[in-house]
């Protein structure tokens, strides 16, 4: 029981917004579309919903070809970043509106709206109008409306983006629980890698109209198939550099080299692209495979629990992120340590060759 995109392409005029894409989304857990603004996430959702017809390819749902079937004829719910509610209706009527369209009996509507309002914790607000609610409550109302009708396909397009940080954290916790007992295919678009990690499920990384990888979220994060996926799925950005493999040694610069890990042994000598996430570089040597390098401090951000140090090593502009407070002077050169056990290596085409 799935939603399937089969070789879908979307072009507008001479511009291709979505390149040839095939994807199978299951009903278990969230399906995350992760990518920057304008990467193509919203277009993908519009194709899934039937709001936009594909230029080529097919959309299948539960074994039926639904390409070209209008969104009104399919059982789809959407929630947008800008929460949309009917301003002149009460919260109750806002949530009930999809059920009214289905001409459901009043008693059943009452039952369903009350249950869903409990679930998203806005039950005390049902008699109010949207403008009397906080932003978080308005977004919960929009969510409740999307949930109330047991849609086959639920599309959530950056629904947390406009919310306060703490509320976002709370809803990120609650959302997957809301869908646990349902049988909808749920798609969630976000620009924030932390959303993807904490919502779990499966993640598709999107860049410039292409899905670069799709798989279980933790697997995509820990073992990205290529450098672009690693970049899309890292915040702060992943550090990159060209390194040379020379026999049993990896050379980053004149002063920095380390033993090549076993997975690299069969590969030919020569240049590779290195990817190392900021939390694998620390001002403290705590790792087994800690390789020292010196860095000239450009910026130091100390957040109380974490230190983020932007530094320069030769021509490289890198970032280190570590637990605890490490007071460092801007402009000075300090020792840092790379946990090379967690280094990822990519070939000239950007494909992962060792991690």
């Amino acid at each position, binding site marked *: 029981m799935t939603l399937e995109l089969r070789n879908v392409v979307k072009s507008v005029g001479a511009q291709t917004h979505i390149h040839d894409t095939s994807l199978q989304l299951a009903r278990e857990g969230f399906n995350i579309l992760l990518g920057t603004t304008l990467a193509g996430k919203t277009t993908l959702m519009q194709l899934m919903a039937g709001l936009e017809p594909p230029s080529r390819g097919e959309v299948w749902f539960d074994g039926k070809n639904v390409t070209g079937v209008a969104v009104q004829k399919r059982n789809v719910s959407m929630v947008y970043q800008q929460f949309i509610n009917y301003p002149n209706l009460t919260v109750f009527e806002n949530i009930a509106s999809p059920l009214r369209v289905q001409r459901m009996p009043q008693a059943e509507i009452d039952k369903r709206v009350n249950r869903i309002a409990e679930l998203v914790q806005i039950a005390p607000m049902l008699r109010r109008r949207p403008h009397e609610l906080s932003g978080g409550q308005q977004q919960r109302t929009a969510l409740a409306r999307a949930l109330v009708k047991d849609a086959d396909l639920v599309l959530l397009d950056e629904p947390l983006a406009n919310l306060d940080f703490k509320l976002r954290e709370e809803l990120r916790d609650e959302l997957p629980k809301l869908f646990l007992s349902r049988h909808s295919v749920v798609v969630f678009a976000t*620009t924030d890698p932390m959303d993807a990690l904490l919502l779990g499920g499966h993640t598709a990384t999107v860049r410039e109209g292409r899905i670069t990888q799709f798989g279980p979220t933790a697997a995509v994060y820990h073992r990205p198939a290529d450098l672009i996926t690693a970049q899309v799925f890292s915040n702060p*950005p992943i550090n990159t550099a060209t390194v040379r493999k020379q026999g049993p040694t990896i050379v980053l610069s004149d002063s920095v080299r380390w033993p090549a890990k076993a997975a690299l042994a069969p590969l030919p000598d020569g240049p590779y692209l290195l990817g190392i996430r900021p939390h694998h570089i620390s001002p403290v040597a705590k790792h087994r495979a800690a390789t020292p390098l010196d860095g000239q401090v450009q910026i130091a951000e100390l*957040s109380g629990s974490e230190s983020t140090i*932007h530094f320069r090593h030769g021509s490289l502009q890198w970032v280190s992120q570590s637990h605890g407070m490490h007071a460092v002077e801007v402009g000075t050169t300090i020792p840092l340590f790379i946990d090379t056990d967690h280094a990822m290596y990519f070939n000239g085409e950007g494909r992962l060759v060792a991690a």
Partner: protein
Amino acid sequence: MATISLHNIEHSYLARPRGPEDWALKRLDLEWLDGGAYALLGPSGCGKTTLLNIISGLVRPTEGKVLFDGIDLTDRPTDRRHIAQVFQFPVVYDTMTVWENLAFPLRNRRLPRAEIEQKVAAIADMLDLSGMLNKRAAGLTADGKQKISLGRGLVRSDVNVVMFDEPLTVIDPHLKWQLRSKLKELHQRTRRTMIYVTHDQTEALTFADKVVVMHEGSVVQIGSPLELFERPRHTFVGHFIGSPGMNVLPCAVDGGAVLFAGQRVAVEKPPTAAIGGRRTEIGVRPEFVTLAQAGIPVSIVKVSDAGRFRIVEARHGDDRIKLLVEQGVAVPADTAHVRFDPAHTRLYADGQLLE
């Protein structure tokens, strides 16, 4: 440049405020020192924008005085306070070039051409805009436009304070890092007084030397990022700062002993005076809770992979306890014991830290 003092400020948007809930700002005294990097942090509706508008003169406080270097400016209009403001959405003149946008505040003040040239060049250099000074602003991306807004806020040297109201909300996460670092660097280079208003703790803690935390119209704590993390003076601060926030667990106090889950819990400062009828809680951050052989018995509810670490959600009875566990450490599937680090376990009465 000036030291800004808020003296016994109170504000209500109502003509005849009655109960405490009618006050958007409750009585407060605050001093912003010349050259400081401040953040004003709190959830929406906490009063932070009201406070900002009182400093800038857009709102006249119901009670109290606004002093710049000891001079009462409470009734002086915004344009005569010499304040620069940067808003959530970039304010850019689309038909002008980048250079003209940056020069706008200086031309308005009829500065000599040579001085304008020199100042615009300096600020463009700091913001990496030098290469696009002749481009029309209309063609820029959201972060490019926001850079111009920041530049316009910083180009004048006659301002008393630069205020940023949620300046990075519309910026993608991977670009936030760059702009935030830029802002921090600009503060370090110009030493202007800056006040950064946000609901995002990461932005506040990484930008500011002093963070003012607000909750329901009051300032609940002013401190360095480290102080707010290590020693929240109110359970609200403990919860609001940190992701996930501090665990706040109801406890009993019996003489000098603190009891949770029927067990004695060591806290940093055991109670010395009588607690009376006050509600008592222990506060301990997820960073300082560890899995142990013995201690408080819990059931494991959920393990989330946050990439750098995992967040474990455990339960004892109705109480939820979160802890951070490093990658690679085994987490039992069903039941476990947890231990609180006594040096980082604090005792609160009616929400206030007992010191």
